[in-house]
């Protein structure tokens, strides 16, 4: 890891924690900040499959919900503390993801089928869980503590989420500089060339998918903790698409761009929802859609490309 990377991570963490301290007196802002940080973590995890590998995965919320619900059920039914349960939740999510990746990542199968498989996975799991769980909210037990990853204050919860976010960023950076990262970036550039220089494209795509879905599944429980409950509505197609959108707007493969997009758009979306949401529902999502079209057509390098351009312009 280079000094400048290390420095930017340190600065980002310092800023995030500073904001955390500043708003720690206000529960609403604290919760909002925690939400934004968790969202950023999901986007950062998505970056591994979407940004680095170039596979449009639209099932983020499915892995999140599945991991979160498995962890919650293990706790409620079997008494397994979530601090252990999240690993199982992550593994279950990764298992399902790999099952979908195996047919769709075959050499010569077009990208569209993977995008579609994952997009519909969210819808299907939503329907199936509604069928089996019913429309109800299931509340977490009244137990609090680190063992349950469910601290008493929002500030402590924010710290947990922040640690997860930091971990995901570090995983991204580690992968980027390793053999896997080289292979993933090559797959994104050109699958045929990758195969010809000896990259087992399906294997490496599956590795990326497994890492991403494991992280997303394990972190999913934190989403349940924020709500204190879970229902079939956790399988949210809109959320999954939003996560992918942030990764794309951020500039595929750029972890800083992805996180910047996640923070800016989520905060903006939250603001729009709280001010105009009653008048114009869906305005925040409309904005995401417009941003996606604009970025896709005009600036496929996304925010990261914009940053680079500004940097060059600044140096002149």
């Amino acid at each position, binding site marked *: 890891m280079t000094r400048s990377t290390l420095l930017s991570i340190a600065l980002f963490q310092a800023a995030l924690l500073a904001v955390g301290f500043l708003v720690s007196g206000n529960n609403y802002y604290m919760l909002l900040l925690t939400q934004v940080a968790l969202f950023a973590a999901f986007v950062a995890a998505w970056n591994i499959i979407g940004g680095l590998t170039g596979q449009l995965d639209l099932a983020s919320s499915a892995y999140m919900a599945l991991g979160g619900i498995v962890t919650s059920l293990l706790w409620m039914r079997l008494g397994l503390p979530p601090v252990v349960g999240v690993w199982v939740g992550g593994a279950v999510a990764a298992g399902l993801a790999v099952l979908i990746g195996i047919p769709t990542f075959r*050499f010569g199968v077009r990208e569209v089928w993977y995008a579609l498989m994952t997009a519909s996975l969210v819808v299907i799991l939503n329907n199936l869980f509604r069928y089996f769980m019913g429309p109800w909210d299931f509340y977490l037990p009244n137990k609090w503590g680190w063992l349950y990853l469910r601290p008493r204050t929002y500030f402590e919860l924010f710290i947990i989420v922040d640690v997860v976010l930091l971990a995901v960023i570090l995983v991204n950076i580690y992968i980027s*500089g*390793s*053999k896997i990262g*080289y*292979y993933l*970036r*090559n797959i*994104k*550039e*050109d699958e*045929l*060339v*990758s*195969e*010809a*220089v*000896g*990259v*087992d*494209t399906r294997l490496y795509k599956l590795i990326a998918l497994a890492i991403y879905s494991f992280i997303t599944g394990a972190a999913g429980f934190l989403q349940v903790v924020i709500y204190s409950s879970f229902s079939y509505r956790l399988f949210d197609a809109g959320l999954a698409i939003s996560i992918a959108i942030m990764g794309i707007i951020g500039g595929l*493969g750029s972890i800083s761009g992805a996180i910047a997009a996640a923070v800016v758009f989520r905060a903006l979306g939250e603001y729009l929802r709280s001010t105009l949401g009653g008048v114009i529902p869906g305005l925040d999502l409309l904005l995401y859609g417009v941003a996606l079209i604009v970025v896709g057509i005009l600036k496929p390098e996304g925010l990261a490309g914009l940053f680079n351009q500004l940097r060059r312009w600044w140096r002149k």
Partner: protein
Amino acid sequence: MSAPDVVLRVENVTKRFGGVVALNDVTLSVGRGEIVGLIGPNGSGKTTLFNCITGVYKPDKGRVFFMGRDITGLQPHEVAKLGIARTWQKVRPFRNLTVLEAVTTGALLRTDSVEEARKTAVEVLELIGLPREEWGRLGSEITLMEHKLVDLARALATGPKLLLLDEIAAGLRPHEQERLAEVIKKVWSDRGLTIVVVEHVMRFVMSLSKRVVVLHEGRVIAEGPPEEVASNPRVIEAYLGIKPV
């Protein structure tokens, strides 16, 4: 030729696309250390043959042997692992990788260490003589000639025994073609490679290979030393309309 000296053997390979027969019962052998030219007009099946050898396509009939081993139907990455590398007819640009990164990826086939792979990549880039200041450029920032050299370097970095060059001279100016031919000869002698060159620019092939195979409409129609093949009436007929330069 005794078996161990045959690096590549293609036996009765047939490949159809829908109703079109792209390769029709093609048989050929390539000996160790040879540079064989594979020529033929556009659409004669040259690239399809490469794709059948490297596992991009599976032949409908026939078998492909590499160093005596049956590699028919293997996945492209498995073929690469065994030691067959190739370059591409159409430039396949890499937009977001640097030259050095692209070549390093090739070298990662033989090692898990990025450091080591980078060393191999540096060696190969020096061997083909790409100036050091180009190494940090992105694929979108280099010329066609540089692309061809990087493509070659990336293939070499995988540590192949057999190198397949698919119309590598296409689109280059004559002096660039000459330089490329020099580079190919250099890596051939330096690495002790076996090379198959697909071209429809006859002159380029003649400067490189002592033996030429001619494909036409998916069949081998002639084989032999370049001068002999160039005067073969069947070859001239096949090339009619395409000037044999």
